[in-house]
């Protein structure tokens, strides 16, 4: 079952990319609002100037041709110029992507740190008040609109308590050379643990805001697969061997319970990546999501197209990684 699965993913990538590119292209071109009009909104542009600009951008050509040109360029990594940044799309995305990925990863980590103990505890004491209380608490996460929760966190932790910063990624005096764009790595690479902590403190509130809903979902998944696993004979057998409870729960049970969670994790990571724009707006986080939303509103087609394609690639790759991880966790599947 292993080899066909890899093959399936490899086939999936171009198909999904093609589908996504087609959908996004259609979506964008069918959207009312003309980028040229928006770009010239505040100017005394004549119709000729507008037509020239339109020709410059290739907007005057037929749909099919535009799509094919877009595809052709995309294959060679050329996504054109971001209208309102007046710079290559690739550049804009490249400088924003690390911030989003860093935020997403930390959010995911927080989600795991919350979800794993919560899910395990709830499963072990299934149907106890603890189980209900914890699952109610974890559901809290799903029910909070991110923008509202984020603002509340800011008011509490930054304004009232003064413990954490309001927004941004790192204060100026903790700046380090950005080799990777991931500040947690860059600060360590620069040998600045103080800067690392500052960067982490900036990450905390947005990551919690972003990660909590994911934590709720993950906790549910882990709880239900733990419930199943805990009923398995090998857990009883492990207990009968006299193993410490921690080892029974976190090695024997959790390792098997995580197998179904891995797939959910990959999907959730994809959703977090694409769902970060609201958190990025609230916390002034310089990530990709914000640019994408701004670009949708500004009809900045090339950037939206490229970003959505990128999301799709990441999605497929994440699933691929999930398969690998699945195999790593599950010895029955060997690639």
């Amino acid at each position, binding site marked *: 079952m292993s080899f066909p699965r890899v093959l399936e993913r490899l086939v999936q990538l171009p198909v999904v990319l093609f589908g996504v590119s087609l959908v996004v292209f259609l979506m964008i071109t069918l959207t009312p609002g003309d980028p040229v009009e928006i770009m010239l909104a505040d100017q005394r542009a004549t119709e000729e100037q507008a037509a020239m600009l339109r020709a410059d951008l290739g907007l005057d050509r037929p749909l099919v041709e535009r799509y094919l040109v877009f595809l052709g360029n995309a294959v060679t990594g050329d996504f054109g110029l971001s209208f309102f940044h007046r710079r290559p799309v690739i550049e804009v995305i490249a400088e924003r992507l690390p911030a989003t990925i860093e935020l997403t990863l930390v959010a995911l980590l927080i989600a795991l740190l919350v979800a794993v103990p919560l899910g395990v505890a709830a499963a072990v004491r299934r149907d106890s008040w603890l189980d209900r209380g914890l699952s109610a608490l974890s559901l809290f996460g799903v029910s909070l609109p991110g923008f509202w929760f984020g603002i509340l966190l800011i008011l509490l932790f930054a304004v009232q308590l003064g413990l954490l910063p309001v927004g941004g990624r790192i204060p100026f005096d903790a700046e380090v050379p950005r080799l990777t764009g991931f500040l947690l790595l860059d600060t360590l690479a620069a040998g600045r643990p103080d800067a690392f902590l500052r960067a982490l403190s900036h990450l905390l509130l947005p990551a919690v805001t972003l990660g909590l809903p994911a934590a709720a979902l993950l906790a549910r998944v882990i709880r239900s697969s733990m419930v199943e696993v805990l009923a398995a004979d090998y857990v009883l057998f492990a207990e009968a061997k006299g193993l410490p409870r921690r080892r029974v729960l976190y090695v024997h049970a959790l390792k098997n319970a995580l197998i179904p969670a891995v797939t959910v994790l990959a999907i959730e990571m994809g959703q977090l990546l694409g769902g970060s724009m*609201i958190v990025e707006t609230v916390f002034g986080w310089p990530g990709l999501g914000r640019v994408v939303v701004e670009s949708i509103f500004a009809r900045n087609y090339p950037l939206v197209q490229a970003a959505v394609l990128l999301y799709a690639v990441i999605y497929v790759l994440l699933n691929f990684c999930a398969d690998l991880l699945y195999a790593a966790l599950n010895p029955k599947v060997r690639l």
Partner: protein
Amino acid sequence: MSAVAAPLPALSPTGLALRRLLRNGTAVASGAVVLGVALLAVLAPWIAPQDPTDADLFRRLCAPAWHGETVEPGFWLGCDSLGRDILSRLIHGARVSLSVAALVVGIAAVIGTLAGLAAGYLRGWTDILVSRLVDTLLGFPYLVFAIGLMAMMGPGLHNIVLALVLKEWIFTCRVVRGETLAAREQDYVEAARALGCSPRHIMLREILPNVLSPVLVVATFRMAYVIIMEASLSFLGLGVQPPTPSWGSMVSDGRDFLVDAWWVSTLPGLCILALVLSINLASQGLRDAFDPRLHQSS
């Protein structure tokens, strides 16, 4: 190990599940909350104490009744920034939030179930087509997809429903397809096939009843997401048209007054919380009751 299972009086699986459900106090209580909200929504025009769109700037941000100072009699939960009664807006907002959630999830469940059945049972090109479509849509981040579609169609209730349905159906579809693939190999399906039943009959009469309970669980679970989604779209200015209140847009509009008049945005926030929580707990109860795998004696 043989231990617990004692024979229970014969009951249909659904009957058993319902029984388990009714014995689950949390599920019943949260189900009651959901039904209560639904009732509020249906009866909104008759029970809302004020006209939810009646603005009076002199009532701007007046406080809830328990606050003492800037209270307007008859406006129990205070007023929003245009002096509209928050209680009435909450009651009417339940209409929008709940009907968006129910419509989206309902339509998505129907589409997703049919597509999933077809893909899982017919296999072949149908499956490839459906699966690739599902993959494609999964590849889109939800919010980007919704924002893109809303930008394309313009804001408004119908468009929200449409935009969300276009993404939501895949979640049901994936589940149903998986269940159908499994059911396909089951004896009862093989027997039906051997009897010469048409694929349509097998899908709708034989397999469908067996996949309904996971569909139900997925649907209730997704409702929570849809309510949050509507709120997020409102935050980005792509929500329902004013002055129609929705809980999401109320939270979003009130966020500028979080410090001066916390109730404007917090009360609808709490309503969302309570509803989503109830839906989730009810769905958890449903799943516990209907998922047979959790009830095998071990």
